[in-house]
């Protein structure tokens, strides 16, 4: 299963409802929707806590027929990796399904994660079996299945790889943490020698793909990755070179075997011919510029 488009030519949705609008990706998407002139309402946990028992009804009250829902809300691993977090996350998925039960939704876009894949396969495509290895991956896979079976809406599932950019609220291992470490401590701490390869997508590129999916009313499954994987060591060195100060890239004894992850992005090219992601160098430069601008504001 890959992505297919309801609208061959892009068109403006009636309205977009952003669930998780206060998060890193949500804020970027809200800005992009506003810039594109798309009527948007953003709902964060302060407006509707999707994990609460009555969340489905409360969300339904805010929906209109023909809304496009973008479901970004999730308790990420930094908020907890335990089964309690898993259950709360699943409750959010169920609430979204309940909210769609009695109203005609134009499209439901779910921001899933590449955490649904194991590291057994290094070249990942949409045909790669989803075999998560931790509860966060299990959560996203379970939500995908819950939405596919219970949500009353055409569904697009986007499995996003690691996103970076200014304003990231997480501190996961990778470009964002490295930039913070470089600016604050002048020292980037690698696991081992940073041999692992990963794909990194700038938040603007992820937002751009989500907007395209909305504009085409797409349904199905798509991995959102650049197709260019790079070692953490190389990421760290690129960050250090742009930090504007002396930065030590520190290694440590390796505790676990290095794992690698590469994406076959052919289906992304098929879905959106001409789509082009920032190079990591360009993305890091843009992020540093945004961070410095924010700091001086």
């Amino acid at each position, binding site marked *: 299963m890959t992505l297919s488009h309801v609208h061959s030519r892009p068109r403006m949705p009636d309205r977009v409802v952003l669930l998780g609008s206060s998060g890193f990706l949500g804020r970027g998407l809200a800005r992009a929707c506003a810039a594109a002139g798309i009527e948007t309402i953003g709902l964060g946990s302060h407006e509707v806590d999707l994990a609460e028992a009555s969340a489905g009804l409360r969300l339904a009250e805010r929906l209109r027929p023909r809304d496009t829902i973008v479901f970004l809300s999730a308790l990420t691993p930094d908020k907890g990796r335990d089964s309690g977090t898993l259950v709360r996350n699943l409750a959010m998925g169920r609430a979204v399904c309940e909210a769609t039960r009695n109203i005609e939704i134009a499209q439901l876009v779910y921001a899933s994660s590449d955490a649904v894949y194991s590291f057994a396969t290094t070249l990942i495509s949409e045909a790669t079996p989803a075999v998560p290895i931790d509860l966060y991956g299990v959560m996203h896979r379970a939500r995908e299945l819950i939405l596919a079976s219970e949500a009353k809406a055409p569904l697009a599932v986007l499995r996003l790889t690691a996103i970076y950019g200014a304003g990231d609220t997480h501190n996961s291992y990778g470009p964002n943490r490295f930039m913070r470490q470089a600016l604050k401590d002048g020292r980037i701490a690698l696991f081992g020698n940073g041999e692992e390869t990963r794909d990194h997508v700038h938040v603007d590129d992820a937002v751009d793909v989500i907007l395209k999916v909305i504009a085409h009313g797409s349904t199905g499954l798509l991995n959102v990755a650049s197709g260019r994987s790079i070692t953490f060591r190389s990421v760290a060195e690129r960050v250090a070179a742009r930090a504007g100060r002396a930065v030590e890239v520190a290694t440590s004894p390796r505790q676990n075997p290095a794992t690698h992850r590469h994406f076959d992005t*052919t289906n992304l090219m098929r879905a959106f011919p001409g*789509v082009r992601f920032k190079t990591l160098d360009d993305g890091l430069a843009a992020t540093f510029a945004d961070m410095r601008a924010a700091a001086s504001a």
Partner: protein
Amino acid sequence: MNKPVVGFAGMTHLGLVSASSVAARGFDVVCFDADSALIRRLTQQDWPVLEPGLDELIRSNARRQRFTDSWADLSMCDVVYVAPDVPTDDQGASDVSGLTALIRDVAGKMKPDAVMVVLSQVPPGYTRALGVLSPQRLYYQVETLVFGLAVERATKPERTIVGCADPAAPLDQRFRAVLDAFGCPILPMRYESAELAKISINCCLVASVTVGNTLAELCERIGGDWSEIAPALKLDRRIGPYAYLTPGLGIAGGNLERDLATVQRLSDAHGTEAGLILAWLRNSRHRRDWPLRELHERVIARVADPVIGVLGVTYKENTHSIKNSPAVALIRELPSCRLRVFDPAVRASAEWHPRMMVTEDALATCDDADALVIMTPWPQFRALKPGDVAGRLRGRVVVDPFSMLDRAAAAAAGLEHVVLGAPLPVHA
């Protein structure tokens, strides 16, 4: 024993080539098809398939080989091959209903002591289950048709594999005389073994192709060159000089796909492990999309409304077949581009792409194109001079999976020449 008269029922690719090769060995051959229009066409020497050497072969057979739509002519034969091409669907599943109907019709018309040889490829278990003739009068012979090389393979087989009800029993003398005329080893075996032998051959070919593709892709990334490595492998006795190691765009044409689908189906039904087949298919799809990825990265993501020249639409050279053709798949996957397309044997269909111009020759395909992609290794494309291509192209990118252009000359002409299994050039 008089020289047997040999009949062939089903005058599509397999039947026509096979019948011609038997006639070339001095036998009188009756070429039957119930399709009168097809027989008329054959009588007028208008061959329905493109196959190097076929025209010369049939002409040299002269009166030994005659075409007919009369059942009565077939009933004069001592040995009757049933040899229609068996169609496959998009999943590679065979539809043997037409073959079965033809076998039953032929069995009812053959003379009482004639033997039947099923030459069309059938799934394991098919021949024994037919029940149309006594086992002594029914054989299955493995065909090894290779599109584009069919005449050479049919006239000079390496061996003949024959499926029998009882391999310990001697072959019918008349059938044996036909096989002996080819002067190659004859391997009688149980029906089921012969049916699976054909599939086994194709699985070995796919395994070799997949090895080549897997390692060629690695070459592209690490600076190796598969064209340097493959000859070394072919000198290894355990691999051999004819091993299918040339990297390509995945398996196509329908026959290999059919055999992989058959193995998957049988493995599912009998509970045997066949994860390898899935791996081959995954690799095949991945490599089929190689030109799309290269074009996207180098042109489509960088040039507004690009024009792409496409050379070749058939699934391989020297054939008219477009079954599962990577070229046709690519053309369909370039909706955002304008296309200029040329193939020496097949005219591209307007249904494949809304903004496609069919050109009249290879160089004209390059005119004002932002990139050229050479999807089929037709021999005449090898004659293209990189300087001429560079002079006609607007862009510099030539995606040339089979290295039809001389690599050094392409580089000298300033082309960004992208070849399977060779280090990928950096985009200018």
